[in-house]
Every structure is written in C-alpha cells, then in structure tokens.
C-alpha cells in the first residue's frame, strides 16, 4: 500500500501534468474567471438561419449532399450512381441539379453556368462533411448579396479554419461502403495555422451492376496573416471521382417483372469528374465595420455517360449520350458593412461587388458503351460542341434603418450584368445542333425586408420577431439558348414572404412562414438533347414551419414541415415539384457519452407530369444514428431506411422505348430506387 503522502504527491503531479497541458491551450491562467456571453445572430427572414456542425454530427451522411437536407423543406434525389450532383427539390421547384438553388462553399460558387448536364448544376461532392463549421441558409430571393440561381433559396457552407484536434475516421458498411477521413489540425500557435483534411470514399450501392464509386478529396487551409481584427487565409481543394451508374429504370418494366428494381438496361452509364479550387480570403472586422475580399479560381471537368430514353431514337445503338464539360472559372467577392448613426437613427450599410468569369468547353455526343457512335439520322456523333465565355458582374447595396426600437427595415438593390460569347468548335456542318453568337443582358432587382419586434421579452416568449420580405431574383440562362433567344432577357422571379419566429418557455423554438412566388416564362435548355423548349409562367406558394424543442437537457426534438402548391399559369402542374415534405427527428446527447438520433423523412406524392396523370408514390424513411464517446474514441453506427421500404430516390416521367416495344415508345415513370436498409459502422480516433 502506498503511503498517504505519496498518494497526495501523485495527485499533485497528475494535476501539474494536466494543468501544463491546459496552459498550452487557450487558458493563460487556470485561476481565471470565465464569463460566457451568448449571442443570437440576427436574421432578415423567418426562414433564414445558420446551422452549425453540431447539427450535422448526428445525421447519417453518405455523401456531402446530405448537408443540403439541413435546409428545411428541401429534398435531394440521386439518379446516377452517387457521383452526379443530386436533384434538388425545394419550394415548388424541381431545381434539377441546382437551377434554382444557389450553393456556395466558403464563398466559391458551386453552381455551374451553361453546364453540359443542366443550367446551375451544383456538385457539392468536393466538400468533406467533417470540415463544415456552419451552413448559412437563405430561402427566397430577398437577399441582396445573393445573385444568380438564388431564386428559391441559397446556402453558403463555411468550412472550419481549425478543429479541436486531429482525427482519423474509419468506417464501412453495407454494399461495400468504405470511408476514410483524416483531419490534421495542429494547435493554434503552429506556424501558418495549417488545417488539412482528406477523404476517400468507396461504394458499390445495392445495384446489380456495381456503382464502383470512388471519391478522393483533399482540403487544405493556411492562415497566412492573423491578427485580432483581420486574417488572410488561403484555401486549396482537390477532388476527383469516378463511378458507374444504373440510371433510371422504367417503372413498367419493373412492374412486369422484366427487370428488377436494382437492375439496369444500360450498365455502361456513369461518369467522372474533378474540381480543384484555390481561394484567397481577407477578412477584417472591428466594432463598426467589416470588410471581406476574396479571389477564387476553379478548374473543373466532367464526363457523363447516360441513357434516358433507351432505344427510342436509335433502335440499334440505343440512345446513349455523353456530356462533356471542361472549364476554368475565376471570380471575386467584395463585401463591406458599416454600422453608424445618421439623423439620430442607427443604420447599417452593406455593399458589395461580385464577379465571375467562366471559360467553358461544353459538348454533347452520342455514344454506345462510352464510345462515340453516329446515331440513326445524324450527320455525326457530335450533337453539340461549343466554346463558351461568360462573364457575370454583380453589384449590390443594402441600407438598413432602425426608425424605432421595434422595426428594422432593409432596402436593397442588386444589379447583375451578363456577357455571353458562344463559338462553334469544328465545322458546323458536322454538328447536329450548331450554335454560335454573342449577347449581353442586365437585370436589376429590388430587395425589401421588414423585421418587427413588437413584443418585449417575457418569461413566456423571447426573441419574438415578425418578418415581411419581398424581392426579385433570377437564374441566368444557358449561353447556348441565350444567344439564340431573340428577346435576350433574363426571366425574373418575384417572391414574397411573411413569417414569425419565437422562442417559447426558453426551450421551444418555433418559426412559421407563408410565401408566394412567380417566375416568368423562359426558354429552357435541354441538356440531354442540345435543344431548347419554352417553359410557361409559373406560380408557387406554400407554408413552412420549423420546431426545435429541448425536451430534456439532453434530449431534443425537431420537426420541419412544408407544403407547396406549384403550377403553371395555364393550370398545368409543375412536374416533380415537391408538395408535402416532413423531416423530423429525436436527438439525444446523454452525458454518459451516448448520442443518438432517430429521424423520419416523409416525401409526399408529387405530380410527375404536367397533366397530373402520373404521380410519384410517397415515401417515409426512418434512419437511426448511434454514437458513443469513450475516451479518445468515438464509435458510431448508422442504420438507414430502418423499415427497408421500397422508395424512389429520383423519378421522372418521359417517353422511352424498350427493345421489344413499338417504335413510338411509351410514356411512363422512370425511377432510380432509393437505398434499402443500410448499416454502417465506424470509429473516429482523436489524437493529442
């Protein structure tokens, strides 16, 4: 038995060691008194919010695109083996791959203009979910600093500059899923404050023809200059991916038993993509002003092989297409914000400038088994092949005035200029759909926000705000359509919203919004055919509500609900626009180290076609996430689709033809099955 004094000395020694470790950290004095001051970020709309990494930790996340579902009312769908940008369904839009939803990562735009697969194609796979610090969510076109594609909404994902420690995550599970993530984050005092993260992901999916999906990601950040008021940091990312896909199968073939849900008619579908980014950001903030200047540049490549209509256009070779996109893009963001008092009224001016230049080689080719072949009736395998140069300048200013203590008004205006130049690559006679031309357009949009704080805080309700928002927005059109469009106008989108937000009993956050919007008619580029088609005026309105309830100190409940009515002015339904979407979950973070989340996603039935004759089936999916913290290890297990229900991740209605069907083809629903029950497990190891 140790003598008592030795035991005491041991205690002292242990304390000294641990205290020494603490001294290396942030606390300069262990006897210091600490005071926490809590702040709530002001918002301009009931639906505007910032979600922090904490909310992501306990959500099953296969791909970085799952981050998008943090936006209440937003649904994503994947129909191409996991590697392609997801379909985004939000606020009455089938935003396709991002036509009406703008995404930024650290200020770098993710959406691609005049893209081979679709306008606004937003591939967020170059993001490593573990590196997310916070996600700023904006719904509607009411925000002056958001331009192109920010019609139904936008999100800006901000990555961390450092982490608590360095970690290594190893995980794997069903369908040969493997995921390895390493994060290197040395202590704050390290020279240049490096923050480096790397990811490798592999997945074969439940399909007969394996996805063989591989993804490599690296993110590196360096803090070049750092003072109390300012910092200059450099971000570099590397992303490379390749996958095979089973595409969308005709529902009629599955019903008749011709093929299974996870089969494929053309297993040669797939793609590969890469994107590299460099970004230099300078931030300055003092008590009265803040300034941000950013320059970014990206290199991007995509080749996508798909076959949607099967054997409709060419009964011999099939309707396989290859979409190819290669581009260099570069841009700037400059924001300045200042608080001051004028005529005795507190004011804030927010102004900025954004630029973006895309130099693109974009083409569409016919293929069979990923080899270019000339299809029946065509002069060559090249359906379209262009060099596109596109410039976008955006200018905005917003003035905020607080005339009384219960009102904030924000009046903003934004001007966007576009210049397009489209050149034909090669001899136009050898191209099925030759295009060339130039054009330019401008659009100015007003933004108006009123924020009322009519009630004083009471023990019953705190932070009660009412919001009225109104604004104009737009999404730019594909250059290949724009230069052929005689009107050369950018279709405008109007949106308005009323909403309320409050925190009741100190433990229940409630927000509610009713919104309306209207989009002018436009010409839509059909990326799969290199043609364009008119799209009529459309109107949408809907309700959204969000509830966050802290049931117990360690248990919280959340519910997002949205219902949307969307139709064209002529009465047709907007195909695939989401109607009822519900997302709800129960999250436990027990002090014992056990963390869990049980969540439910409900996607109601949608109209797949204008005349409402085809409807998609609703789906209810339950997921469970369990995590246990033990010393320096985090063990986690994920079960997705607990009920093993058959659901459809993506669905479209169009005419296709199976080899045995009549030449005119058959109109019907085509879908990509969602994952059945999936289990994954892994461990995160924390170093030093």
């Amino acid at each position, binding site marked *: 038995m140790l003598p008592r004094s030795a035991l005491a000395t041991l205690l*002292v020694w*242990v304390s000294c060691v*641990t205290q020494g470790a603490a001294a290396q950290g942030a606390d300069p004095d*262990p006897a210091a008194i600490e005071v926490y001051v809590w702040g709530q970020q002001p918002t301009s709309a009931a639906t505007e919010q910032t979600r922090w990494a904490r909310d992501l930790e306990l959500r099953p996340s296969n791909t970085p695109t799952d981050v998008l579902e943090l936006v209440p009312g937003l649904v994503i769908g994947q129909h191409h083996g996991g590697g392609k940008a997801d379909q985004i369904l939000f606020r009455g839009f089938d935003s396709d791959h991002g036509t009406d939803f703008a995404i930024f990562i650290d200020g770098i735009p993710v959406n691609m203009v005049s893209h081979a697969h679709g306008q606004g194609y937003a591939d967020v796979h170059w993001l490593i979910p573990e590196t997310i610090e916070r996600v700023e969510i904006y719904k509607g076109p009411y925000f002056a600093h958001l331009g192109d594609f920010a019609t139904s909404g936008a999100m800006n994902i901000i990555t961390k500059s450092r982490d608590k420690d360095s970690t290594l995550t190893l995980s794997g599970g069903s369908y040969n899923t493997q995921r390895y993530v390493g994060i290197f984050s040395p202590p704050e005092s390290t020279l240049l404050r490096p923050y480096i993260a790397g990811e490798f992901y592999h997945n074969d999916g439940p399909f007969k023809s394996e996805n063989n999906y591989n993804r490599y990601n690296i993110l590196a950040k360096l803090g070049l200059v750092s003072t109390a008021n300012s910092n200059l940091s450099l971000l570099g990312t590397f992303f490379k991916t390749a996958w095979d896909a089973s595409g969308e199968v005709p529902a009629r073939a599955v019903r008749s038993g011709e093929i299974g849900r996870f089969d494929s008619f053309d297993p040669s579908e797939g793609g590969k993509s890469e994107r590299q980014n460099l970004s230099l950001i300078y931030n300055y903030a003092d008590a009265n002003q803040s300034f941000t200047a950013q320059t970014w540049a990206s290199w991007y490549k995509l080749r996508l092989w798909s076959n949607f209509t099967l054997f409709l256009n060419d009964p011999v070779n099939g309707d396989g297409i290859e979409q190819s996109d290669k581009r260099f893009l570069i841009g700037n963001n400059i924001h300045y914000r200042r608080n001051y008092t004028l005529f005795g009224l507190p004011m804030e001016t927010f102004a900025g400038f954004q630029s973006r230049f895309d130099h693109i080689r974009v083409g569409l080719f016919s293929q069979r088994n990923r080899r270019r072949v000339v299809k029946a009736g065509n002069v060559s395998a090249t359906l379209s092949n262009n060099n596109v140069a596109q410039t976008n300048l955006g200018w905005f200013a917003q003035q905020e005035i607080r005339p009384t203590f219960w009102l904030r008004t924000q009046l903003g205006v934004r001007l966007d200029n576009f210049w397009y130049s489209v050149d034909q690559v090669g001899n136009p006679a050898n191209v099925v759909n030759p295009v060339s031309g130039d054009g330019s357009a401008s659009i100015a949009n007003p933004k108006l926000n009123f924020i009322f704080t009519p009630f004083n805080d009471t023990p019953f309700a705190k932070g009660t705000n009412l919001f009225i928002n109104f604004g104009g927005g737009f999404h730019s059109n594909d250059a290949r359509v724009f230069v052929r469009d005689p009107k050369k106008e950018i279709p405008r989108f109007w949106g308005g919203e009323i909403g309320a937000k409050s925190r009741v009993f100190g433990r229940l956050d409630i927000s509610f919004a009713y919104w309306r919007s209207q989009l002018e008619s436009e010409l839509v580029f059909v990326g799969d055919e290199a043609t364009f088609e008119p799209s009529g005026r459309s109107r949408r309105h809907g309700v959204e509500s969000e509830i966050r309830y802290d049931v117990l100190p360690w248990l919280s409940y959340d519910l997002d609900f949205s219902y949307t009515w969307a139709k064209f002015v002529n009465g047709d339904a907007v195909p695939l626009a989401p109607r009822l979407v519900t997302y709800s979950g129960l999250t436990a973070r027990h002090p014992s180290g056990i963390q869990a989340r049980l969540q439910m996603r409900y996607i109601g039935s949608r109209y797949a076609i204008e005349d409402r004759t085809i409807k998609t089936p609703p789906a209810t999916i339950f997921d469970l996430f369990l995590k246990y913290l033990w010393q320096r290890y985090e063990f986690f297990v994920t079960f997705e689709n607990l009920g093993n229900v058959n659901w459809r991740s993506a669905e479209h209605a169009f005419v296709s033809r199976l080899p045995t069907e009549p030449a005119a083809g058959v109109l019907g629903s085509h879908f990509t099955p969602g994952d059945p029950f999936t289990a994954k497990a892994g461990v995160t190891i924390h170093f030093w």
Partner: protein
Amino acid sequence: MDLREERLILPLLASSLIHVIVIAAASSSFNAQPRLTERDLLRVTVIDFAPPSEEKSTVTEKQTAPAATPARSDAAPRKLRPREPIPRKPAVESERKSMPAPQPPAVQEPSKQWAPPEPSKLEPFAPEPLPLSPNLPDATAGNGVASFAGGGWRGPDAGIAPGGGAVASSGSRYDSAGAGLHGQPGPIRTNRQARPVQTARASYPPMALRMGLEGDVVLRIEVDAEGNVTRAEVIKSDGAGFDEEALKAVKQSRFEPAEQDGKKVPAEFTYIYRFRLRK
C-alpha cells in the same frame, strides 16, 4: 390540400399521437428542474490541492510511468469538449470528498445575486439575454453549473485537500499570498479570491453577430479592497468589437473583494469573456 388524396390521415394521426406523448413527457419534467435563465453564467475555477512538498522530488521518477496513463486518459475526452475543465478534475474530486454534495438551491441563489436584470436598451440588434439551454456547449450547460454549485464557488473556502490543508493555486496570481500558508494544518479560511457580485452584462458586439464571429477576450483586472475595478487591461484581444464590449462590461462590474486572513485586500486576477453564438 386534399387529405384523402394524400393518404395523410393515418400518418397525421400517428404524428399527432407522437407529439402528444413527447409534449406530455416534457411537461412532466418541466417544473422539475430549476433552470438558469441568466446568460452571464460564471464559472470560477480555483485549483486546490495539497501543497507541493519536498516529497515531490523523491517520488517523481517513480510516478512517470503510472501517472502518465491516467493523465492521458483524462486528457482524451477533454479534446472532445475543449472548454470542459477536466484538467482540474483531480482537484475537484478531492473537494467533493471533503464537502457535502452540491444542492440544487445553491445554484439558484447566487444566480439571483450577481446578475441583476439590466433593462434592455432599445437595441434590436443587441442579443437578447439567452437562457441556458441544453443545446449550449458542454462547458456551460452541464459542467458550468456543476462546477459552480459543487466546487468552484466554495472551493477556496471548503476545498481542503486531505493531506495538506492549504490553498495552493499554483500558477495563479495568488502565489505570493498563498505561499506563507503552505503546510498549515487544519481547515483555515484564507485567500478567497475576489468574486463577482454584480456583473454588468456584456453585450455581444453587433458586427460580430452579423458576421457570425465568436471571440475570447482575456482581461487582467485589479479589484481594490472595496470591490471596485480599479484597472482593466486586455491581455489577449479579439476583433469585431469584442475588446470594447468586454472592457465596458467589466469596468461596470462589482466584486466581493479578495480576503486574506479574514481581511479584505486588493487583488489582481484574470477575467475571460468568452463570446459564443447560440448554436
């Protein structure tokens, strides 16, 4: 919305039922727990343990191996919750042995004491006083309360380590005062740190709120024998208005002066404002 068409009735009923259950479960626990509604929760951490004695040098080499293991296993979870005062755990545990278990009323009483409701100015920008919700970072929610009620506050008075019986806040600024007491036997009341009785609530700088910035400001403050702040100096500053707000608030704060041998004395100590966004 056509309910029949959507086949909504069953899911809606099921969903309502779940809501009722959840709300019922919640409301049953609703009044059970005293909830701190003050934003400026103070966490005072004072390290108490036996005085470093001569024995230290003799045992050091022996300890190297066994002591390293517990130290590391303690440090590991700390990384997951960086603000958690785990390094001080040994001290806190030793206190707990020698003092009664923390009682819930103790939590409420001081909270009334030092955080008077300051009439909120007409500043819609300024953050509203926020309740301490379980969603707040670990440091405040569970641990802040616990260390405050159980150990931190009374620590200097009651926290006498079994072996020695003196306060040796090693590394703190009270070394000079505490030095003479090393080795004194029995429980003595001495060298109580100055503690805040009336803190002016610091407001979150509006620009930082707008930009989504968090900050830490480390101040060195001097409190005279009456408890007034005579000097406050920023030793680690942060941008976006954090320094200004921290200084403004601390200069308006009142302290219960430090005590030495029962006499009130001027003291100098470190005061940290941690500005955090509600997440």
